[in-house]
């Protein structure tokens, strides 16, 4: 008897669940979903921030910030030297301008266990209501973080550049060698499709080549993707590869900037 009632309850609930899945696929539940997301979001955010305070050492965060500031200064100096100071002026520097950036707080790290796995995605507290779109680039202090791959009214999921699904066109800082950076997962990236004739060197900074479309969706040029840490050059191969490491520790990010495109 008890078994029968259990199965009856299960069948009723599973029917309701499939009904919800069906309605959600047709977009009928969007309004309700958005309403409940707005209720849950502040709770999720406050808990995430509390956890963040527990796990992140403030001194380490400060040092990382300083390190990034120094890296920015270094790369700016390299650019100045390269162009011999003459051909550059303030307007020729293609950097995302402040008015095109939207700050967003990181409220979740799916598939991340501290010291066991590396995050492949971030969840941000901004979504469609804030004017974001799928494909918008996400950055932090001239460093590329990733791009928005899924979005709802108040939240968005960012695939990090180290995510195995990410591929982007890049150029190197010193000799402008062009190639493709592909995420390998676990915080690793590989620079491939670089012709053997192109010179690559260790510690070379890798920048985005830029692939913005007319709506400003995509990667803006000259964002730092990472630094070359090892090169794999085989004379019999068509292309050479290099291992690239991002300058950012994605697990420590609390705030990032979404590039909404130039207006």
């Amino acid at each position: 008897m008890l078994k029968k009632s259990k199965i009856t309850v299960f069948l009723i609930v599973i029917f309701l669940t499939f009904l919800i899945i069906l309605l959600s696929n047709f977009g009928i539940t969007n309004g309700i979903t958005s309403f409940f997301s707005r209720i849950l979001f502040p709770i999720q955010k406050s808990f995430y921030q509390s956890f963040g305070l527990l796990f992140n050492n403030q001194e380490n965060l400060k040092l990382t910030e300083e390190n990034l500031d120094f890296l920015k200064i270094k790369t700016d100096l390299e650019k100045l030297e390269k162009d011999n100071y003459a051909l550059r002026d303030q307007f020729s520097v293609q950097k995302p301008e402040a008015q095109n950036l939207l700050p967003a707080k990181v409220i979740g790290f799916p598939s991340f266990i501290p010291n066991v796995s590396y995050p492949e995605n971030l969840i941000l507290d901004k979504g469609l209501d804030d004017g974001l779109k799928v494909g918008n680039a996400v950055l932090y202090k001239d460093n590329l973080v990733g791009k928005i791959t899924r979005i709802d009214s108040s939240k968005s999921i960012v695939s990090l550049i180290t995510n195995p699904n990410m591929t982007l066109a890049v150029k190197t800082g010193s000799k402008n060698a062009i190639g493709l950076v592909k995420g390998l997962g676990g915080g690793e990236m590989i620079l491939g499709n670089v012709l053997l004739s192109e010179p690559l060197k260790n510690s070379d900074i890798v920048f985005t080549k830029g692939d913005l479309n007319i709506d400003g969706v995509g990667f803006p040029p000259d964002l730092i993707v990472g630094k070359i840490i090892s090169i794999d050059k085989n004379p019999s191969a068509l292309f050479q590869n290099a291992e690239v490491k991002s300058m950012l520790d994605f697990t420590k990010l609390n705030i990032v900037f979404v590039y909404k495109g130039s207006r």
Partner: protein
Amino acid sequence: MKQWIIWLILFLSIIAEGTITTLPLVLSSFLILMVFLRKNILFWIALIVGLILDLMLVRDLGLTSVIFLFFLIIISLYENKFETSTSAFILISSFLGSLIYLLFFGIQNAFIQSIFCSFLTLLIFKLLLISEIKTKKYKFE
């Protein structure tokens, strides 16, 4: 044993899974709830909690509930024939449940996470069992 401890574990699991970890802690909590409480209302709670997790983790609405519901019905059908309050059952069912859950959602390191989660579930189960025995003993005295 006070029931509120199990409900508190479920609440903390929802918070943890929705914010900082991908370990299927909610699934493990439902396993413990089913073993200790054996109530039909758990199916309704699984539906609601699954929807909450889908909203928090920006998943397609209802998918998590489906996994929870099938997991619960399998556990409850099993308990009609065999003893479920054993360490071996908790360890194996939480491992298999976690593995299927993690693979279904395409989460990395599914195997390691499942092992970790199953041992964590076993630990919580043992602690609850000890507290239950102590409570019964106290009442008897």
